[in-house]
C-alpha cells in the first residue's frame, strides 16, 4: 500500500460520515448558493484580528531589525517569553518567569510537544467526554492511550468517574475549558475536587499532570472568571494559542506555560526543546511570536461573541431544543430530538440548509455541535429553519 496501514486506519476512522457530510455540504452550497446555507460546522472564526494588531504588525515590518526572520532558540524569543510571563504572573498570581514559557506552533503544536515529551508507550491520558476528537490522535501519535471519562449531564467534570478511570499507567488528564464542543467552563469546585484527588494520588507516589488546553480562555461570558488551576495544583501545564482571542488561527502561534511549582523544570524544558525540534516544528513562527508578546492583554470583542451566544441560545429555546447554556468558547451542544443524531443532522442539512456536526464526532452520540463563530445575520437567518425543525420534532406529533 502506498500509505502506512496505521494512517489508512486513522483516515478510515474519521471518514465515513464526515466525508459524506462534507460532500453533501458542498453539494447543498452549490445547489442553493452560499447565502442560503447556514454553515455552523466549522470552528474557524470569521473575526478579524484587532486593528491595533494589524498596525503593530505593519510597524514591525516597516522598521525591520536585522535577523528578524532567522532561527532563534527552540523555545522562542526571550523577550517575548518575558512579556508573556509578566502577563501570566499578573493573571494567576504565581511566579512565572521567561523560563516557564515555551512558544509553540499553536495549541495543537503545543499539545504534541508536551505529549511527545511526557508519554511512554502505554501511558494513559484521561480525557473528559464529549471531547475534541484530535486529542485522541495527538495522544496516539506517541503511543499513549486515551481513557475517556463521561462528564455529568451539564458537561461538568464527574470526579467519581475520573477517580475510577485512574490506573497505574495514568500520566495526565487533559482538560479543555472553555470546552469544545460543549462551551462548558469547568467550575471552581469541580477543579478543586480534581486537584484534591490528584494530590491524594501524589501522596501515594503517583504524579499525574493536569494539561489544560486553554485555547478559548478569553472567551468566557456572564462575567465569570476562569478558575485558576495553577493555584490549586502543582503539576499543571497550560497550553494556549492566539487562534481565537486574537483571531490568528492561520498563523499558528501559541505557547505552553509550565507551572513554577513543577520542580523538574530544566528537565522538562530540555525534553520539550528536543520534541519541538524533532517533530519538525523547530520553533514557533518568528514574526507572530513578536506580535503575541505585545498583545497578551488584548483580544477580539468578547461582547460580540456573547451576543451571538445569547441570540443562538434564544433561538434554540424557542425551537424547543434541549441545550446546556454555554459559558464560554463559541460552541453549543444541544441534544438531538431523536436518538440517532446522524439522521437528525442530515435532515437539518437537507431540509433547512443548516450545517452542524453530529455528536459522535466528539464521542457523544445523541447530540450535535453548533459553532456560532459566524456573522450575527447568519445566526438570525437560521432562526426560521431551527423553528421549523423544532415544530417538526417536538410539536408536530402533538
Amino acid at each position, binding site marked *: 500500500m502506498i500509505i502506512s496501514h496505521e494512517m489508512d486506519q486513522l483516515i478510515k476512522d474519521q471518514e465515513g460520515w464526515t466525508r459524506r457530510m462534507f460532500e453533501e455540504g458542498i453539494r447543498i452550497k452549490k445547489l442553493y448558493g452560499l447565502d442560503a446555507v447556514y454553515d455552523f460546522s466549522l470552528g474557524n472564526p*470569521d473575526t478579524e*484580528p484587532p486593528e491595533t494588531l494589524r498596525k503593530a504588525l*505593519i510597524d514591525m515590518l516597516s522598521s525591520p531589525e536585522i535577523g528578524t526572520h532567522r532561527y532563534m532558540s527552540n523555545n522562542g524569543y526571550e523577550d517575548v517569553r518575558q512579556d508573556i510571563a509578566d502577563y501570566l504572573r499578573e493573571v494567576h498570581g504565581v511566579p512565572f518567569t521567561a523560563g516557564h514559557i515555551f512558544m509553540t506552533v499553536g495549541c495543537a503544536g503545543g499539545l504534541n510537544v508536551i505529549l511527545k515529551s511526557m508519554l511512554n508507550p502505554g501511558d494513559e491520558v484521561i480525557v473528559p467526554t464529549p471531547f475534541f476528537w484530535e486529542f485522541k490522535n495527538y495522544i496516539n501519535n506517541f503511543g499513549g492511550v486515551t481513557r475517556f471519562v463521561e462528564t455529568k449531564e451539564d458537561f461538568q467534570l464527574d470526579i467519581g468517574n475520573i477517580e475510577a478511570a485512574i490506573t497505574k499507567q495514568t500520566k495526565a488528564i487533559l482538560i479543555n475549558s472553555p470546552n469544545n464542543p460543549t462551551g462548558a467552563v469547568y467550575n471552581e469546585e469541580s477543579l478543586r475536587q480534581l486537584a484534591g484527588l490528584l494530590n491524594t494520588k501524589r501522596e501515594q507516589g503517583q504524579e499525574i499532570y493536569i494539561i489544560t488546553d486553554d485555547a478559548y480562555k478569553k472567551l468566557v461570558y456572564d462575567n465569570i472568571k476562569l478558575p485558576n488551576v495553577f493555584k490549586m495544583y502543582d503539576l499543571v501545564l497550560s497550553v494556549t494559542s492566539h487562534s481565537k482571542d486574537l483571531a490568528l488561527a492561520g498563523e*499558528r502561534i501559541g505557547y505552553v506555560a509550565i507551572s513554577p511549582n513543577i520542580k523538574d523544570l530544566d528537565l522538562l524544558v530540555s525534553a520539550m526543546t528536543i520534541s519541538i525540534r524533532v*517533530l519538525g516544528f523547530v520553533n514557533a513562527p518568528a514574526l507572530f511570536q513578536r506580535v503575541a508578546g505585545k498583545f497578551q492583554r488584548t483580544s477580539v470583542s468578547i461582547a460580540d461573541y456573547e451576543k451571538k451566544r445569547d441570540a443562538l441560545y434564544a433561538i434554540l429555546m424557542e425551537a424547543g431544543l434541549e441545550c446546556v447554556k454555554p459559558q464560554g468558547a463559541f460552541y453549543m451542544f444541544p441534544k438531538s430530538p431523536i436518538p440517532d443524531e446522524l439522521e437528525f443532522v442530515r435532515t437539518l442539512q437537507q431540509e433547512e440548509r443548516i450545517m452542524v456536526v453530529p455528536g459522535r464526532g466528539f464521542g457523544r452520540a445523541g447530540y450535535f455541535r453548533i459553532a456560532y463563530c459566524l456573522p450575527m445575520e447568519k445566526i438570525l437567518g437560521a432562526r426560521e429553519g431551527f423553528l421549523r425543525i423544532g415544530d417538526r420534532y417536538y410539536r408536530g406529533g402533538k
Partner: protein
Amino acid sequence: MKNSSWIRAMFEEGEKLKKKHGVENIFDFSLGNPITEPPEILKEELIRVASSHAQGMHRYMTNSGYDDVREEIAHYLVETTGLPYSKDHIVMTVGAAGGLNVVFKSILDPGDEVIVPCPFFVEFMFYISNHGGAMKLVDTKDDFHLDIDKIKAAITKKTKAILINSPHNPTGVVYNEEELRELAALLRERSQKGQRIYIIADEAYRKIIYNGTRLPNLANLYEDTVTVTCHSKDLGLAGERIGYIAMSPHIKNVRSLIDATIFANRILGFINAPAIMQRVVAKFQRNSVDIMDYQKKRDAIYNVLVESGFEVVKPQGAFYIFPKSPIPDDVQFVKTMLQHHILTVPGVGFGKPGYFRLAYCVNMDVIEKSRPYFKEVGELLRNGREQ
C-alpha cells in the same frame, strides 16, 4: 535526550568562550543558522500583505494551504521539471522538518526501514523513529557520493524509502545525474517485483548550488518521488517555518498519499503552514538570496582549510564543508580547535567520526579573521606529527 546532549555541551562550551574572549574573537562555525536577510523585495511584499484590508488573511485555510499559493508553486515546478504538477500535488508545511515528519507519518508502519546515506543530518534519525520507522545508514564513497552497491545491499523487504539530501548537510556534496539514475534503476527493479520504495528528496538547499552546477531533478528520474523543501535558506526565512511537500504526478494512486499527508499535517499539530508566509513565498519561487555571496564564502573557507593543510572535498552546494580530522578522534580535535577559538561540530554528530563540519553561513570577515587560527591548528598538528 541523551543522543543530542553532547551537541549541547559543545554549544555551552562555545558560550563560555564567547564570554571569556568576546564574541568577536570566537569563530563560530557550529550552527546552520544563516545570517542572510530575505531579499529586499520580499520584505516589501510582506508589508504589502500585512497592510491588506482583505478579510480573512489570518484565518484557518484548508490544511494543505491556500489554493492560489499551491497553484503558483505548481506552475513553478511545471516550468522547472516539465512534469504535470497541479496544486493538488502540493502541501504547504511548517518548513522542511515539518514536511519530512508529515511524509514519514504518512508512509511508515512500525518496523519499516528508511535508508539514509551517511554522513547524515542527525535529525533524520528522529524524524524516522518518531513514526516507528527504523533508519538504515549506508556509507557513501570517499568523495561522499552515493555508493549504489551498498544501497543495494541495504535494501530489505521492509525498505519503504530512501532519503536523499542534496545539496547535502554536512558535506555540501551535490549528487550527480548519473548516480541518481543508477539509484532510480535499482529501485525500479524492486518496484517491478512489487516493492515500492519512495525517494524522499530533502531539497532544503536546492538553490544554494555553485559554479553553474544543475541540481538533477529526482522526480524526472524516478516516479515514486516526494520532494520536501523550505525557504529557510533560499529566502532567509528560517524562523518563519515555511516550506512544502511536492508529490510527483507520476506516483500511482497519488491521491491517497496526498490525503494522508494532509491528514498527518493536521494530527501532528501543524494544522497548516503559517498563513502570511504562504502568501509571500508563493510569489518568490524564482528568487533567492545572493548565491554568489555564498560561493565566495565557500571559496574563502575552502582556501583557508587547504592552506592550513586540511584534507577536504570541495563542496558544490549548501553552506557546509566537511574536512577530515587530522587525528582519528574528531571530538578531541574539535576540542583542540576550541582552544584556538574555532567552533565546529565533530563528525560523530553526523554519523561519521574522523571528520568535522563547518557551517560557513557567517560574515565573510569571520572567515577571513579565522585564517591565522586555522593555520595555528594546522601548524600544531604538523609539528605533532613530526615529533
